């Protein structure tokens, strides 16, 4: 017997927002009778573009019903942009957890929402967001490479078995296991690489020279590209103890939010990459800064 949380059982026994909105602005349908679970989600927007009404119909087990039900509660009142950000993990947390083998129920909920939002854009704006569906990897359950990569990425999955739990791919004949393993490798490999780039291993203790070098390196590689993208620039003036003196140029220097940019971006970044106790200060006597 499954160990369902009280929340799951509550949403199963007393599902919220059951039904079908006839004049819906968006309709999302995922799953099928053959697969054992299917969900139809419909919503209507109010004048401000917020979800005013949302209803679901689900064929499936308790966790499928509960995932759908809790999802309707979550999205009510949201704009479509906000709703589009909901992940299957958000659904799982709202339910207080799901058994591993039932994770695909939360993924189905998220997919139905996505389908309904896409449907809205297609109808109302006459444009289908060109969302590539990818190529079918698992023919047994009709799951594409993009869908697999998505669940792997969002839920940090590392084994084929986990992928099966989350999106069913691999749960039939098993013919696709090799390809799924490759996709996991692709996604996790990318993650490891980007994380390695993002997070150089911080030495425990830094000599002064090392610290200055590391600060300079971090500014060059992590901070300056971002500021330049916004039309600004940054220059390292000095490092005294834990105080880093920098000069901001261009957009940033004139911007009223310069303080904010300084504190939040530069200092946070330097603390992340160099040392937790760094304090960033701006050299104010640069030309232009005093005019503000």
């Amino acid at each position: 017997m499954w160990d369902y949380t009280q929340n799951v059982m509550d949403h199963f026994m007393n599902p919220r927002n059951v039904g079908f909105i006839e004049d819906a602005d968006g309709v999302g349908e995922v799953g099928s009778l053959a697969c054992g679970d299917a969900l139809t989600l419909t919503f209507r927007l109010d004048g401000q573009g917020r979800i005013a009404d949302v209803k679901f119909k689900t064929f499936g087990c308790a966790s499928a019903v509960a995932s759908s039900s809790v999802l309707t509660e979550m999205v009510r009142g949201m704009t479509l942009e906000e709703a589009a950000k909901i992940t299957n993990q958000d659904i799982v947390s709202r339910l207080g957890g799901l058994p591993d083998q039932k994770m695909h129920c939360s993924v189905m909920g998220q997919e139905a929402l996505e389908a309904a939002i896409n449907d809205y854009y297609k109808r109302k704006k006459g444009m289908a967001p060109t969302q590539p569906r990818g190529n079918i990897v698992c023919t047994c359950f009709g799951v594409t490479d993009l869908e697999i990569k998505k669940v792997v990425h969002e839920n940090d999955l590392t084994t084929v078995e986990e992928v099966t739990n989350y999106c069913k791919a691999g749960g039939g004949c098993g013919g696709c296991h090799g390809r799924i393993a490759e996709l996991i490798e692709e996604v996790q490999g990318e993650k490891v690489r980007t994380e390695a780039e993002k997070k150089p291993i911080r030495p425990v203790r830094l000599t002064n020279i090392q610290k200055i070098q590391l600060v300079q390196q971090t500014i060059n590689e992590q901070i300056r590209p971002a500021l330049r993208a916004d039309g600004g620039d940054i220059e390292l003036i000095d490092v005294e103890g834990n105080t880093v003196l920098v000069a901001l140029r261009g957009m940033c220097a004139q911007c009223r939010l310069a303080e904010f940019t300084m504190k939040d971006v530069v200092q946070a970044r330097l603390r992340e990459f160099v040392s937790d106790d760094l304090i960033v200060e701006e050299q104010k006597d640069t030309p232009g800064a005093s005019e503000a």
Partner: protein
Amino acid sequence: MDSVIYMDNNATTRVADEVVQEMLPYLTEKYGNPSSMHTFGGQVGKKIAEARQRVATLLGCHPEEILFTSCGTESDNTAIKGTLASYPNKRKVVTTRVEHPAVLTTCRDLERHGYSISEIGVDRAGRLDLDELGFRLDDNTAIASVMWANNETGTIFPIDQIAEIVKGRGIVFHTDAVQAVGKIPLNLRESHIDLLSLAGHKLHAPKGVGVLYVRKGTRLSTFMHGGHQEGGKRGGTENVPGIIALGKACELAQQHLEEENTRVRALRDRLQKKILAGCPDCMINGDTRDRLPNTLNVSFEYIEGEAILLMLNKFGICASSGSACTSGALEPSHVLRAMGVPFTAAHGSIRFSLSRYNTQEEVDFVADKLPGVVHRLRELSPFVAT
């Protein structure tokens, strides 16, 4: 839970009070080892001999042909692997697509080790294709293993006829009779069965004890090496209380066989009739003419089995489902799929399995609650227009 309506007897059964009484002293004061040379242990040995006789009486065989094991699964494994080990030149097993995993996964594992496996198919009612069976048996076949009655649908195979076909080809025949023993009459003396498995907990004995019947003269390699217990075929100090309990349970089964096939059958038929009348879009799975008297497998279209079970659970009703979701598997029951039951119906299949402890009030209660549950879930289903 205060009141439970237990209709999941193909999963396991309540231990009969008489059985508990019988085994109790062997858990307390009579704890001797039956192999010991003193009367304290010897009295236990006598009791085991009595149990062996009781099992043999129910099966219609000799007590020496009864080998005690720990469960049905062990009996199945022993039968198949023990036979293969004693026929090293034969590399093939013939079985069916609807066997319990105790047989099916054992065979599929053997396949990975170089054996060839033939799985015979069934028709829409779950009946075995006997022509295909005859066709698959060849000189390379060491053993054919065909279940007596199916645990999910209750469909009974014509085992005597099948045994005759298999033995006619000089091949060892095993049957998994875990669901048949105690529910339908059997007489091994008049059959061609070489090996038969049963499990105590399916006939009101406790869990942890099973039997492998081995016809005299059947070649079977030792499965568990150890002491001289069970004629040296299965070493290990006996599960004394379990074996004694099983002996008693077999005696009771003999006494209740008539009731099982009259009163329990009538209850099952009543439940079936009421469900078919009370719920639209449902259908019976299995062979309604040749079926265990206690089993009812019914599919409710457009809704999912686990959801039905959880709602029944709220009323204290215990049943089971062949739906994918209940097991954590992603596909519904291999038995229903082998029968070609559409996925739509397989996902919504529920098995009620009764026993002599069920009453008409219970049957009526279930039949009364079920339509409401089905209706509620159909209101949720996108496949039903409301």
